[in-house]
C-alpha cells in the first residue's frame, strides 16, 4: 500500500452527506463503512487509502452498527484519522491502540474572556511574544512544572483534581473538562519506565507539529443562544489550546502496539492489516492497555490545564489585571483521540460500548448526563481547530450525533498538503510575515514548522463544519478568527 494509491472500492451515496462502503466489499467486514462527506470532500477521499482503512476497521470483532469516518478523514495508521468505531465488550468487542492514535487524548480547550478585540489589539505583539517566551513549545522542551516520580504517578491516576489540590485548577475548570479531567481506572503501574521518563518535565508543554496556542476573536456568531450559554460574544477575545499527552502518550501507544502484536492470533482474530493490533477489551491484554491509556489521557488533561494556567498568568501580567478580573474562564476541554466506555442505544438496546475516536470529537447533545449543569439545556461545546490563517469553530452537539455517530463529530480541517510539499510551497516566502499582513502575529520555534503548518496546507475548515451540520451531528455556534499564534 503506497501513499499514491487511491481507493478503487465502492462508495455508494446514502444521502447528501453520507457515503457507504457496503459490507460485501471485503470478506470479514461485519458492518458497512460509512463516511460523512459532501460531493467536494468525497473526491479527496478517493485519493488515498483512508476509505480502505474504514473497511478494514469494519472487520474488528464486536463492532457495532458501522465503521464511521468524519468529513476530515485522511489516511492514518491502521485506523484512518477521523475514524469512529464502537465495539461491544459483551460480543468479544476489542480495544485497539490504533483506534486512539499515538497522541492519546490529544484535544482542544477554549477559554473565553471579558476582553474585546479593541482592548487587546494594542497589547497583541507583546502578549504573543511573552506567551511564546514563557510557555514551553517545540521539540522535547520541558516545562516549569516539575513533578517527582511519585507525584507523576498520582497525577496519572487522579488527573486534573490532583492539580486542583495543588492550587493549579479551579472547581469550574474541572466542571468544564470532559470527564472532569480524570478517567477512573487509570493505572500508572501499567506504564513502562520509558513512558514515565518521557513524561517527566513535559506536563505543561505545548509540543510541536500541529499543536498550538492561539489568541482568537469571535468573528461571527451563528447561534446566539448557544453562544450566550458558552459565554461567547462577537468581537470577544478567546484562547484556544491544542495539545495532547506529549512523549508519555506516544510511548504508551508504541509499547501497546508492540505488546499486542501476537495477541490477535492468540484470540483467533483475523485482521486485514496488522496495524489494527487489538485485544478483546475484557482480556488481560486489553485491560492493561485500557489502564495505561486512561493514565495517559489524565496526563493530557493535566497538560492542557497547566498550559491554560500559564496562559492565564501571562495574560494577567501583560494586561495588568488578575485573570479572574479578565474572566478568563474555561468554556470546555474535549478530547479527539481517545477510547471510552459509554452507554449507547443499538437496535433499541442501551449498552456499554468502547467508543474509539481517532481524530474525532465527542459531541453530546442537550440533556446528556455527562454534561456539566451549565450546558445541560444547550449541549456540549465542540471545539474544532482550523488553520492559523483562517478560522476555527465552536459547535454544539446535536441529538443526531447520538443516533448516527455514537455521539461524535469531526475534529479539524484535515491536511491537503504533505509536510514536504508545504515546505516546497513556502520556498522563498516568509510565512510569519504573510500571517502578520493578514492580521495574525505568529511565533514558532521553527521556521520550517511554520511552513509545514501554513494555512494552504489545510482544507478550509468551513467546508468540513458545513457537512457535519447538514448531517445533524453538531451545529455551528461561533466562528473564531486567529489573531495570535504560538507553535512549536
Amino acid at each position, binding site marked *: 500500500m503506497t501513499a499514491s494509491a487511491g481507493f478503487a472500492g465502492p462508495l455508494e451515496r446514502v444521502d447528501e452527506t453520507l457515503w457507504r462502503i457496503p459490507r460485501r466489499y471485503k470478506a470479514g467486514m461485519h458492518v458497512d463503512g460509512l463516511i460523512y462527506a459532501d460531493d467536494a470532500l468525497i473526491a479527496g477521499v478517493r485519493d488515498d487509502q483512508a476509505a480502505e482503512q474504514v473497511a478494514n476497521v469494519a472487520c474488528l470483532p464486536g463492532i457495532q452498527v458501522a465503521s464511521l469516518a468524519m468529513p476530515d478523514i485522511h489516511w492514518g495508521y491502521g485506523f484512518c484519522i477521523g475514524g469512529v468505531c464502537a465495539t461491544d465488550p459483551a460480543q468479544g468487542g476489542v480495544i485497539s491502540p490504533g483506534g486512539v492514535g499515538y497522541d492519546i487524548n490529544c484535544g482542544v480547550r477554549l477559554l473565553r474572556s471579558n476582553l474585546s478585540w479593541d482592548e487587546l489589539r494594542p497589547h497583541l505583539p507583546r502578549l504573543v511574544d511573552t506567551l511564546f517566551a514563557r510557555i514551553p513549545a517545540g521539540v522535547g522542551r520541558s516545562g516549569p512544572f516539575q513533578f517527582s516520580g511519585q507525584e507523576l504517578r498520582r497525577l496519572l491516576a487522579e488527573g486534573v483534581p490532583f492539580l486542583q489540590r495543588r492550587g493549579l485548577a479551579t472547581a469550574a475548570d474541572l466542571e468544564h473538562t470532559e470527564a472532569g479531567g480524570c478517567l477512573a481506572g487509570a493505572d500508572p503501574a501499567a506504564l513502562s519506565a520509558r513512558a514515565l521518563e518521557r513524561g517527566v518535565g513535559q506536563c505543561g508543554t505545548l509540543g*510541536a507539529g500541529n499543536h498550538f496556542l492561539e489568541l482568537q476573536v469571535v468573528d461571527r456568531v451563528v447561534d446566539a443562544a448557544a453562544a450566550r450559554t458558552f459565554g461567547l460574544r462577537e468581537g470577544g477575545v478567546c484562547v484556544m489550546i491544542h495539545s495532547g499527552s506529549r512523549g508519555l502518550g506516544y510511548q504508551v501507544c508504541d509499547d501497546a502496539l508492540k505488546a499486542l502484536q501476537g495477541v490477535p492470533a492468540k484470540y483467533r482474530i483475523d485482521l486485514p492489516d496488522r496495524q489494527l493490533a487489538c485485544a478483546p477489551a475484557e482480556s488481560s491484554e486489553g485491560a492493561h492497555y485500557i489502564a495505561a491509556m486512561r493514565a495517559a489521557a489524565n496526563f493530557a488533561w493535566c497538560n492542557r490545564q497547566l498550559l491554560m494556567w500559564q496562559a492565564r498568568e501571562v495574560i494577567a501580567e501583560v494586561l495588568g489585571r488578575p485573570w479572574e478580573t479578565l474572566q478568563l474562564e474555561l468554556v470546555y476541554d474535549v478530547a479527539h483521540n481517545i477510547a471510552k466506555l459509554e452507554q449507547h442505544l443499538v437496535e433499541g438496546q442501551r449498552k456499554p460500548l468502547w467508543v474509539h475516536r481517532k481524530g474525532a470529537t465527542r459531541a453530546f447533545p442537550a440533556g446528556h448526563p455527562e454534561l456539566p449543569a451549565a450546558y445541560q439545556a444547550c449541549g456540549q461545546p465542540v471545539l474544532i481547530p482550523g488553520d492559523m490563517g483562517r478560522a476555527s469553530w465552536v459547535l454544539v452537539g446535536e441529538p443526531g450525533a447520538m443516533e448516527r455517530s455514537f455521539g461524535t463529530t469531526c475534529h479539524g480541517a484535515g491536511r491537503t498538503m504533505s*509536510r514536504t510539499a508545504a515546505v516546497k510551497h513556502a520556498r522563498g516566502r516568509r510565512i510569519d510575515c504573510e500571517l502578520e499582513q493578514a492580521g495574525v502575529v505568529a511565533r514558532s520555534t521553527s521556521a520550517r514548522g511554520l511552513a509545514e503548518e501554513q494555512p494552504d496546507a489545510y482544507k478550509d475548515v468551513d467546508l468540513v463544519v458545513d457537512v457535519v451540520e447538514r448531517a445533524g451531528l453538531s451545529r455551528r455556534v461561533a466562528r473564531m478568527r486567529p489573531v495570535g499564534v504560538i507553535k512549536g
Partner: protein
Amino acid sequence: MAIEDTLGSLPEFVDVVVDGDGDGDGRTLYRLDAWAARRARRTPTGAARLLLRSLAMPYELFEHTADLGLRVRAPSLERLCAEGARGLTSVLVVAPEAVLGRETRCLALANDDAAELWREWLAELAFLFAARGFVVASCSVAIRAGRLDAEVCGESFDERRHGRAHEVKAVTYHALRVVEDAEGWLGEAILDI
C-alpha cells in the same frame, strides 16, 4: 557524461565530477563508496546525475499526508541501520552536519524480523533524543542472528548549534519495509510527526 568513463577502478571511495547540474559553477562533486559506484556503473547515462545525487545521500525523506517517510538504501543491513540513524538525525535537527561525535553509547536490540529490527532501532534513537536529549552523529552497527549491537556517537542536543526541526512522536508500523534485492538493502519507515 558517461559514468563508465568516470568510474575506473573501485577503491574505497570514488570522487565523481558531473557537469551541468545547474548549481552555478557547472560542477558538482559526489563521493561514492565502492558499492555506490557499482550501482552507478549499471545506470543509463541519462539518469546519471539524479542517481549520483541519491547515492551520495543514501537516505531521503518522502511524503506522507501528515507525517514524514524515511527511505534508506545501503549495501548491507548494518549500513542500512547506520544510514537510517543519520536520516533520523536530519529529521530531528535543522543542522545534522553540526552534530559532533563527542560521546559514545552502546545499544543492543534483538528481533528476528529485519523490518521489526529496523523499526526498533529507529525508535530507540528517537527515544534517546526525546527523553535524554542525545543526538546521533554517526554509528557503527553489527547484526548477527537477529541481534543488533551498535556504538552510537553523538552529543547532547544544543539548540543553538543544531536547531530544532521535528518532534518524532513514533516510528510507526505503517508501510514499514525492509527488503534485500540485487542492489542491496532498502528500508522505509513512516515517522509520526
